[in-house]
């Protein structure tokens, strides 16, 4: 540390002095004199302030009693009373508790402002750093300690210690391993498992969401847009799909949901979309390729589908290409067909992963995907 060039009075050497304010352009007039408040000099005002504060505390106590009373008497919940469109119990409890607290707060501050001493006092500041003596003593203690430990003289001990302690990060990391399986490990564990698969497979019927009824291609009008799901999500004895519960069901739903639209076949732009459609009925993954929100908003005249979360817009007439917004990839299309009874079925699982992109994902264009399907 370099020695300071000048010793200012009042500052110990080695300290950065507290910023001595500027050039004294004008003399400091000093603290203004104390002004007495009415409560300081008028006994009546003082008594009045005292009564005000006590009244506020009293009002608080009344509100607290009201809180307890309304807790006991007013029925809560949905079948309770309502007040200005809100639950009466909630309003009564909130207002009485709020006022009880506010009256105490206002009362205490009023007490402080009107009755407590209001002389401003001044306190010296000291530099944030310790004194030079403290510093050198600490440094000496530190050096003595280090010297006695021999940590500088025994590099072998020091380095093996550092190494072994650093290695202790390994258990901490390794033990987190069982937080979850690796992406490839889940494949085959449950129906539709893995990022590259969904529960759809060849010949699975397309059913309406919520009710689970199969859909006849002939029942759909041009312009109809609706949500659909694979039949496997609605297992019955008749269709023979295994029961899906809890997390597995949620996972299956989160990947298999589709949105369907029937458009005029003449409006379809890309060959792939045409090949995978039935009478102008197309099915696309409902899961946005951006960050995975379910897509829901349709522009009827343009066959554009908009994601409500971040407004990515996809063209359903043209392989689900992105026409606007932050999504980087087209919406995967589900190849559709019709079974013997005239119900819509999937010709296969999705031929590419649905939902948001991820590092290992091998993105192919819809044309490449179609080529693979043929082979």
């Amino acid at each position: 540390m370099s020695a300071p060039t000048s010793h200012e009075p009042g500052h110990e050497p080695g300290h950065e002095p507290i910023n001595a304010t500027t050039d004294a352009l004008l003399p400091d007039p000093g603290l203004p004199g104390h002004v007495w408040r009415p409560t300081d000099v008028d006994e009546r005002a003082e008594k009045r302030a005292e009564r005000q504060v006590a009244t506020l505390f009293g009002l608080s106590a009344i509100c607290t009693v009201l809180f307890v009373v309304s807790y006991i008497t007013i029925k809560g919940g949905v079948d309770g009373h309502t007040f200005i469109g809100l639950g009466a119990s909630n309003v009564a409890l909130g207002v009485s508790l709020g006022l009880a607290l506010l009256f105490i707060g206002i009362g205490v501050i009023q007490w402080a402002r009107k009755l407590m001493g209001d002389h401003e006092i001044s306190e010296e500041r000291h530099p944030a750093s310790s004194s030079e003596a403290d510093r050198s003593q600490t440094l000496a203690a530190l050096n003595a300690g280090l010297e006695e430990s021999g940590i500088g003289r025994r590099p072998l001990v020091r380095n093996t210690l550092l190494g072994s302690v650093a290695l202790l990060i390994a258990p901490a990391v390794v033990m987190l391993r069982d937080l979850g399986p690796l992406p490839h490990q889940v494949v085959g564990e449950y129906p539709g498992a893995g990022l590259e698969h969904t529960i759809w497979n060849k010949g699975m019927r397309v059913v309406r969401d919520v009710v689970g009824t199969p859909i006849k291609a002939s029942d759909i009008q041009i312009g109809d847009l609706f949500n659909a799901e694979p039949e496997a999500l609605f297992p019955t004895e008749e269709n023979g799909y295994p029961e899906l519960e809890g997390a597995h069901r949620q996972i299956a739903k989160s990947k298999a949901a589709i949105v369907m639209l029937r458009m005029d076949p003449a409006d379809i732009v890309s060959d792939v979309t045409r090949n995978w459609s039935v009478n102008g009925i197309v099915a696309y993954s409902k899961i946005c390729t951006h960050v995975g929100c379910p897509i829901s908003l349709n522009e009827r005249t343009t066959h554009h589908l908009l994601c409500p979360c971040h407004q990515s817009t996809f063209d359903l007439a043209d392989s689900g290409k992105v026409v606007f917004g932050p999504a980087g990839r087209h919406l995967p299309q589900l190849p559709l067909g019709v079974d013997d009874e005239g119900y819509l079925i999937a010709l296969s699982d999705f031929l590419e992963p649905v939902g948001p992109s991820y590092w290992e994902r091998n993105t192919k264009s819809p044309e490449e995907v179609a080529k693979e399907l043929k082979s």
Partner: protein
Amino acid sequence: MSIDTSKVAASNRTAAVASKPSKVGAAAGWADERLGLAAMGKKNLRKVFPDHWSFMLGEIALWSFVVLLLSGVFLTLWFRPSMAEVTYQGSYNQLRGISMSEAYASALNISFDVRGGLLMRQMHHWAAMLFIAAMMIHLLRVFFTGAHRKPRELNWVIGSLLLLLGTLEGFTGYSLPDDLLSGTGIRAADGFIKSIPIVGTYISFFLFGGEFPGDAIIPRLYTIHVLLIPGLLLALIAAHMLLLVYHKHTQWPGPGRTENNVVGFPMLPVYAAKAGGFFFIVFGVTALMGGLMSLNPVWKFGPYDPTKVTAGSQPDWYMGWPDGALRIMPGIESHFWGSTWSWNIFLPIIVLPGLLFTVLLLLPFIEGWITGDKREHHLLQRPRNAPTRTATMVALMTIYACFWAAGGNDLIAIKLHASINQITYFLRAAVFILPIITFLVTRRICISLQRHDNEMLLHGYESGVIMRTPEGSYYEKHLPISEARAYTLTVRDRSAEQLTPATQDDTNGVPAPKGRLSGFRDKIRTLYYADDVDKPTTAELEEAHHHADHEAHELEALDGHSAEGHHFDGRHPVSEEPIRPEHH
């Protein structure tokens, strides 16, 4: 006018006087014999805190955190952080018989079947919003007034970490009820994580315990929300307050208020009462909000279903800006050697917040490096007296505002009947252009205000009195500002002095060592202080006073004469004067 101070109330009579043994003294003695607190109490019980409304902003954050702790503990008594599927049998008709997670069912239970439960839920959520909003405004106050300068840089860092942790705490909190809206938020978060190159998919699988949504995320977020982050918040808040006490609070300059003292009211009783009373006020306001303002009505959204979404899905307001960045980012994705790089997600939601947060964290150090100022600062600066700093924060605020607006681009489009595409294109450009414009405009406004201060100092304030000279021309009379005000205006550094090289040669003529960047830094420093209007020099001030005396001398001729308005110049007693003397 004199005041009879002989009847001064008891409260103002005393300084610290040793009193006869009392109950308080006995209790304090008992404690001191075991804890040895007297040494600390002596210093701190009468510790001085300066008074200013803006010093209350951080206090709002502190007290809303206490409200969060209290209401949060209440909620944990009933909330079940479990994704096990149950069939709802509670009292809310519309959802009875529907399968949902236990977490959502218990959130409904708290809202409808626990008396005061809805109040506590809403208070908890409102207090969270208040907590983060207060931290942000407090941060702005600190930066605009230069309270982040030495020796308080580390407290700035702690405060920034508090803001970051508070935001994460908010996100993990509003994700817990497992309703449709919060589930959509988690769904998007999974997309964010998957966009991270190389490890994204693994992190997602580890976090969710497998594929999204799985059944692990709610219990894991719960532990983070009620244990991990609150613990860190508590520790950092304690450190923040300890440093505040150690450094002593900054104060505004004024007569008798210097860099070397702190003037204000003592902790006991005035500040203890004011701060304690303010806790009750924050608590009370939160209770009123919880009682009267409906917030996050989870029962209306329904349980989470990965196939459903509500239009206008929005995160809580403080998460709006990264969401907006995500919305206006063009959809760029690249593919190399079988790997996918989702720039469209990774850059706006992972890199950008990290980058902006790092900038925030480093602001005091960047400023210190540019100015080369190694002195301690305890007097606050008016924003105008650091034009570049003020303009920098306004530019950052503009960036924030653009992103935040982008986060509501669908709502703006609906409310203003505008095209969402055009709004998005506009914001893509605005987020780069508007900060530059607001930076330049703010800087100029600051400089103009500095000039205005100098005008007041040299020529007084505009009195509104119009003078007519014997020649018939008119001018407005300026009157001198008060001594205290003039002094306060002059307590500031001269930028010109800051520009002299900091690395001066020492007394022996040995050149000071120069870093490689010092040339670059000198240029930045010149720009930092460019066009600052310094306070007048002593010569200028004397010249101005001389001029004012001269003018006053001229006016003396009017003394005793009727001259409309002229005697309202602060130099003549006017209590008996009519504004308009009767005409003869």
